[in-house]
């Protein structure tokens, strides 16, 4: 099963890699239209970051895509595989290929602040993975991801300011902890909802499996939004 999941994930990566075609296109456009003297390295860095973002979202949201597209859910659920193994086989290839890509960004110093960039991308992918069981529509999934990503960024800024005001850590460490704590605050309720939903998952329509999201994820997100609102209005 792991082999199949690696194959599926690499297929998504290959599709996302088509964004690399933007590099020669940008160079040509610069030469003919913009005349900004864009360096190959600059265009490559931006393109690679876009690939990372797109890959992390797509590979995450498409966790059960092959089952939906291939009508293989009934077959998968009838096989003697534990649910925990299915989750592992689905997440491990996605995360390991993403980590490999992140290693490339670290080697070539593509991110300005490497560790924070990595946390953001990993958070984005895991959020997408955990959201895959929540709703049936891909558009709502994408909207959901962007809402969660915005919330994550706002919340990490808030934690950063809080830690920085303590005056214990250097600026970069405060920012790192801000990202780390914010990702945990987002991923823990989402992850619990995902695991609880998948533990009882069967062939019933998706709407019968979303109780954990309604009772865990939604209140957690509402609390985060409330905290941001109170902070923004200087109540805290």
């Amino acid at each position: 099963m792991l082999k199949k999941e690696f194959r599926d994930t690499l297929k998504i990566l290959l599709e996302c890699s088509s964004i690399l075609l933007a590099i020669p296109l940008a160079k040509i456009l610069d030469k003919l239209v913009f005349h900004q003297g864009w360096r190959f390295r600059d265009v490559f860095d931006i393109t690679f970051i876009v690939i990372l973002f797109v890959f992390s979202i797509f590979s995450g949201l498409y966790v059960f895509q092959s089952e939906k597209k291939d009508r293989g859910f009934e077959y998968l659920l009838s096989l003697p595989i534990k649910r925990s193994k299915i989750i592992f086989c689905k997440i491990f290839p996605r995360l390991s290929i993403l980590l490999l890509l992140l290693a490339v960004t670290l080697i070539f110093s593509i991110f300005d602040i490497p560790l924070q960039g990595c946390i953001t991308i990993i958070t984005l992918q895991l959020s997408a993975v955990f959201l895959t069981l929540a709703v049936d529509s891909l558009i709502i999934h994408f909207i959901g991801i962007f809402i969660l990503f915005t919330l994550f960024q706002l919340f990490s800024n808030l934690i950063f300011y809080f830690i920085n005001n303590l005056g214990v850590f250097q600026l970069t460490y405060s920012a790192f902890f801000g990202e780390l704590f914010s990702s945990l605050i987002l991923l823990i309720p989402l992850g619990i909802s995902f695991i609880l939903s998948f533990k009882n998952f069967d062939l019933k329509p998706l709407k019968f499996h979303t109780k954990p999201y309604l009772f865990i994820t939604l209140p957690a997100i509402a609390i985060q939004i409330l905290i941001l609102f109170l902070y923004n209005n200087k109540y805290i």
Partner: protein
Amino acid sequence: MIEIKNLSFKFGKLKIFNDFNLEIPKGEVVLITGINGVGKTTLLRLIAGVLKPLKGEIKFSDEISSDPRRYIGFISDKLSLYESLTVSQAIDFHKSIYGISNFDDFLIKFTKIKKSQKLKQLSIGQRAIFHLSLILSTNPKILLIDEIIHSIDVYLRNIFIKELIKLISEKMVTLVLVNLNFYDIENILNRVILLKNGEIAVNEKIGTLKTKVKKLISTNSPKSLPVISQIDYLDHSEYFIYPYKENYRKQFDGEVIDLNLTEIVSAFIGGEYA
């Protein structure tokens, strides 16, 4: 053996089963039938572990109870498999899940399936045979087949049914079929279970059932007899009686006719629509 105890299941507010009980002895060939939407496919999916019961339990004999899904082969009505895989990849995938090293491809040779073909390129019959050969490679103790046999062309259907007969006679496999068409499978069946409103309306050995259900042709209505359905014509009516007893002949003026399985089930189903 499959033992279903106090099983309850529903889709949202729609109740399918409530305190449902059923026992299927080892090695029996059972037909589950009933009108559309009565829960035949749901019952098969519950036994296969594809759906989870709301309440109650499904028990299996000791030899397979540790990991029932390892010993249950399930061919769904949608022939669910990973369609984008090639035949060869699907075989490897199945082998890796069940931890088996050998795959006997004698069955797929009959069907002219090429190993490089994608599953979505196969016909329904070829996919059914391929799915069966995947299941056979795992030595199942229970085989569940949902309404697929009559979607297969005559040539492949014969191959499919021959394999089922071999499986039943040589390996004592318990076979549970959901079907609405019985012509080809009547000879291999032991038992018929008819579902009605989420409950068992009939659960009889096929021989017993044939002696218990009869058609009476008459011009008079047999009001005292247990009529399950009737068909009215201009000059006479046909009454389907269950359970039929020999002494009814004395009480009733008309002709008594034996029925085949298709006619028996039609009589029960006709009664539900009446």
